[in-house]
């Protein structure tokens, strides 16, 4: 039999890939199917799932409510639609800010002397591998009323003789945005760097020889050629921002509720896994749709793997 296996290349390949494939099937694909099944269920008062086929969770998610003012039987309650919309717009804004910050740095690294590039990249990796929760905590300390940002603004204002009351920055949408940008910035720098580094220097020289000024070179040469990096980075940033709940939990307090917080609460405090499952499927569908149209427009960058 061993002899047979030695000759059968196809069986060898299957055998080698089997542990990984089975593992991913059991722990990633089956859970997704299960989530779908549970989302059609109902919960009993103990918070256990009763398997059923009802669209109640989805209807509720999209605004149908039976808990209405002035005795109506049903009405439109936009609370969950608002949460979805807020998550989408936050993910969009975060991605925009991250691109704006990441691009100059990635360009700086890609255009520096090859001997120094690794050191500069290393300096991007350190904050990336500092634990996610610790990084949120660092911003919590900076943003609060007694934090460093208020102290520094206070000094400046004092020197200018302008009266100043410490700003309330923590527990605002702005704090969540800053936290998200900080958390995911390195994920954009690395892929943009990878695609910028591939651009041959002679292209810049050719552009200059043909009379393009630096701005025109950036617009017509650098930007188009680095698009694969921007696309890969956007996928690496947009998707996790849509699902993160720690940043809004710690920096947004009870003020900024995202779809991640909604899901988390259904599984812990509210004990309604069926509603949580429906919300998480909607989240998944939303990210897949955005990713699909985005990559269809710009192509799927191979930089995603390199990063």
């Amino acid at each position, binding site marked *: 039999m061993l002899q047979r296996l030695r000759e059968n*290349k*196809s*069986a060898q*390949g*299957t055998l*080698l*890939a089997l*542990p*990984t*494939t089975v*593992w*991913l099937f059991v*722990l*990633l*694909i089956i*859970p*997704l199917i*299960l*989530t779908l099944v549970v989302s059609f269920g109902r919960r009993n008062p103990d918070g256990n799932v009763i398997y059923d086929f009802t669209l109640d969770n989805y209807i509720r998610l999209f605004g149908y409510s039976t808990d209405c003012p002035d005795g109506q039987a049903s009405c439109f309650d936009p609370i969950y639609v608002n949460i979805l919309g807020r998550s989408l717009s936050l993910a969009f804004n975060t991605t925009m800010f991250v691109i704006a*910050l*990441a691009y*100059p*740095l990635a360009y*700086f690294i890609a*255009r*520096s002397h090859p001997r120094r590039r690794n050191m500069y990249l*290393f300096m991007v990796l*350190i*904050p990336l*591998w*500092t*634990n996610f*929760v*610790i990084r949120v*905590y*660092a911003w919590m*300390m*900076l943003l609060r009323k*007694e934090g460093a940002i208020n102290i520094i603004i206070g000094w400046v204002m004092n020197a200018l003789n302008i009266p100043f009351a410490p700003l309330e920055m923590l527990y605002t949408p702005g704090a969540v945005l800053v936290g998200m940008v*900080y958390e995911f*910035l*390195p994920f954009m720098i690395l892929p943009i760097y990878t695609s910028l580094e591939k651009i041959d220097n002679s292209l810049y*020289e050719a552009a200059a020889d043909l009379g393009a000024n630096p701005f025109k070179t950036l617009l017509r040469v650098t930007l188009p050629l680095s698009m694969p990096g921007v696309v890969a980075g956007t996928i690496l940033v947009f998707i*996790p921002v849509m*699902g993160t709940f720690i940043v809004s939990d*710690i920096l947004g307090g009870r003020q900024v509720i995202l779809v*991640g917080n909604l*899901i*988390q609460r259904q*599984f812990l405090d509210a004990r309604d*896994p069926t509603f*949580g499952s429906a919300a*998480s*499927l909607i*989240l*998944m569908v939303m*990210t*897949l749709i955005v990713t699909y149209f985005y990559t269809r427009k710009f192509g799927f960058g191979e930089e995603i*793997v*390199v990063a």
Partner: protein
Amino acid sequence: MNPYRRSPFVIAAAILVYFFLYAPIVGLILYSFNASRTNVTFEGFIPAFSENVVMDGSLVKSSPCGLFHWYCDLAKNDDVAEAAGNTLTIAITATIISTVIGTMAALALQRYNFKIKPFSQLSLYIPIVIPEIVMGIGILTLFSQFFGCANETFNLAGDARLSLGIATVTMSHIAFMVPFVTLVVQARLQGFDKSYEEAAMDLGANEWTTFRRVTFPMILPGIMSGALLAFTLSLDDFVITFFTNGPGSTTLPIYVYGLLRRIITPQVNALSTVWILVVFLAVLMLQILQNRESKSHS
């Protein structure tokens, strides 16, 4: 013309972004030496050594460890020790398993043709395109439904009852780590010069010997960087662990998160600082490995 000339705007922007990346971390480290127990404002460094801890209200006046008071405090914290132990146990176990099976899969996908190949390849992208929380609650549902069924069917009671713990966290970590190992090793295999293997075979080595003496040593740096990447992913993971851990399997990120919602002393900052140092060394190692590899390639 100097090819590495950058405009002053680019340099200024780069400095600002680096400042943005590092300022919070520097602040975090600074506060780990804070004399104030409440840690809301920085009340200066802990000034002196003494035999016992001397407090003035919430200010530490002196301590046996002096400036490093909160680090000593941290060392005495059993919960941190337990969480650190759990984190390492999970990360090491999950890294070993995912590196072995992930490398096998990379070899299969790069070198062989088989029926389930497209499915195997496609499933690797799941952790990249699906938000972690979706995977987290899915895995939680799987385990809780399965454990519920098993406990009822086999009438398990007391300690024999299946429940969430280190095993479930480890299994879930492997699920999101394997794809990264496979993709990294696959990328290395793509640039692999097959003539070395052919030479070995021509010289009479059989397939296994060729793999052991030629292929494996050549892809080892790739496997190592895949393993280190997987290891850091496991150490860093919050979301999946959050949904799959149970009593007694708290990891460091989960522990820190718990603290952030309650009382924060500079001990958290001391813990963060130690963590940053450890990660710094790990990333440095990864970098050196990759440098050596790129040198041997060129």
